[in-house]
């Protein structure tokens, strides 16, 4: 171990088994400063202990991860959230990202990848899983959906992804790690990270109404 303190992580999940598993996986790499199994307690403890990263379950009783996120960011906007879930509907994932989560990973993520994702979140970068990248590409896609509807352009000024950003998202969706993407596109990992962060920003700022429309008309996977 080196001198820099370990990032302080807080776990929120209503399943004790999952928390125990995460605890075991993360204990060596982070300082786990607490865990909560329900929304109210989570908000209180997170505000009190101000962790670097909160690992947040999307689906919980009483409003789920979204409620925690909204409850905490009102008073402590500096806390960073990484959403963690089994497999969710597009609208839930997009909602939690728009509410301010820095990323979304599925629970079948491998241990080392999760560690990397948390470190990335702590550093203020965005973490996109394959599924989230797919959702985003789908939301910004110009292609009509299965009902044959007309293309759904989002807010044209703010919401267009650059060709490079689309390229990066596609590689993520294809299963490439940031490192592999950097090698493939012959750019630095830092540049990959900044592309992904830009996409996250666009996602959080884009025209709310249309993105919600998109999410509700999708029932992917």
């Amino acid at each position, binding site marked *: 171990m080196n001198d820099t303190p370990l990032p302080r992580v807080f776990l929120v999940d209503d399943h004790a088994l999952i928390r125990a598993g995460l605890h075991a996986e993360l204990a060596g790499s982070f300082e786990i400063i607490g865990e909560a199994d329900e929304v109210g307690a989570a908000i209180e403890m997170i505000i009190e202990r101000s962790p670097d990263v909160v690992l947040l379950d999307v689906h919980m009783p009483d409003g789920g991860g979204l409620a925690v996120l909204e409850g905490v960011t009102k008073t402590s906007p500096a806390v960073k959230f990484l959403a963690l879930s*089994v*497999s969710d*509907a597009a609208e839930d994932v997009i909602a939690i990202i728009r509410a301010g989560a820095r990323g979304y990973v599925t629970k*079948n993520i491998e241990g080392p990848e999760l560690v990397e994702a948390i470190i990335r979140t702590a550093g203020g970068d965005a973490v996109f899983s*394959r*599924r989230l*990248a*797919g959702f985003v*590409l*789908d939301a910004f*896609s*110009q*292609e*009509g*959906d*299965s009902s*044959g509807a007309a293309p759904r352009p989002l807010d044209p000024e703010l919401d267009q992804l650059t060709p490079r950003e689309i390229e990066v998202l*596609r590689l993520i*969706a*294809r*299963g*490439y790690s940031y490192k592999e993407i950097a090698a493939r596109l012959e750019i630095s990992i830092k540049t990959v990270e900044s592309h992904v962060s830009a996409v996250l920003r666009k996602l959080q700022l884009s025209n709310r109404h249309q993105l919600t429309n998109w999410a509700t008309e999708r*029932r*992917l*996977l």
Partner: protein
Amino acid sequence: MLGGVCSGIAKRFGVQARTVRIVAVISALFLASGAALYMAMWIAITRQGEDTSIFTRTSSDKREKEILFVVSIAVITFLIALRTLGLHALGLFLWLLTLSALEGLMVWRGASSDEREHLRTLADSSAVRTTTKSDSWLGVAIRTGVGVVFAIWGISFLSRVGYEQGAAAYVIVGAAALVLGLFVLFAPWWVRTVRDLSYERRARLRAQDRADMAAHVHDSVMQTLSLIQRAADNPAEVTRLARIQERDLRIWLANPETFGTSTNPPTSLAQSALEIEREIEDNYGVGVDVVVVADIALDDSVNALLAAGREATLNAAKWSGANSISLYIEAEPNQVSMFIRDQGKGFDLGQVPDDRQGIARSIIERMHRYDGTAVIRSTPGNGTEVELHMPRRVHSE
């Protein structure tokens, strides 16, 4: 029940409250005299636990007296106006009704605070309100007023039937006015009843949903769990069972109504992709993680692409040694692409064993037949990616 007058009288004279009430209701039906009497007693008699009656309170307050006076004058003027318009027949009934209404006003103004509270809860549950909260009192008052006027009008017409000419017309107009009045009065109550019924129906539907959920969980998840317990010493089998169950549950959660009914062939890109996932996971115990961007309908070239993609996935499942395969499919306006990636052992494209060569060739040939392209990228130790692109026909919709 209303002002507690009946039970008060009953207590005073030692009879049952119910008897007094029945007498009161019957007398109320006779030209409203009972109602007027009831209200008068309500005003005059001191409420139990209070030291002054409504009458003493009202008559000792100058402002209250003024209000009462002004309203009475207005109402009486209105009645006289009605009379000149030809409503003679009502006579006594109308006057008594008016008297009761004025007494009612006096009760409302002069009621003590907890009596008023009691009246308010009574009013909240009365028939002329649609909901207990969102209705404005002004709206209720106007609606009730309009309803009562129409009803009285209707009754007055009907009561003249006997001794005037044109009886048929009177009956029709009178009945219509009465019905309209009653409708205006009781429509809110009717709306409320209907709405309560639909709430109930929805609650039943939700209960039904829960029952379906429980049944499904029992049928599939419990069975799988018991299978998993039996296969506890066989990790590969446990993984396979868990994967099947997970996928099953996911599809069911996303679309419970079509679940189990779709044994027919898939009709869209995303459905076909899920079909590939199911086949490979069930037969090879390797996870297939599918991400689809922009679902489209199937046609010959898309089917060819899917067949080639399936082959590539199968190949990865058989040979790569990886425990999961990433499948990414994207439909763009001009092409559909499919990427099959594993992080298994990979191979040297130069020295492929013959059987693998054959599969690779069949993938490429399938794609070429529809003007598509296939690229296979692999390095030993670093996994394999098969990249397929199929141009889309210009669709004439």
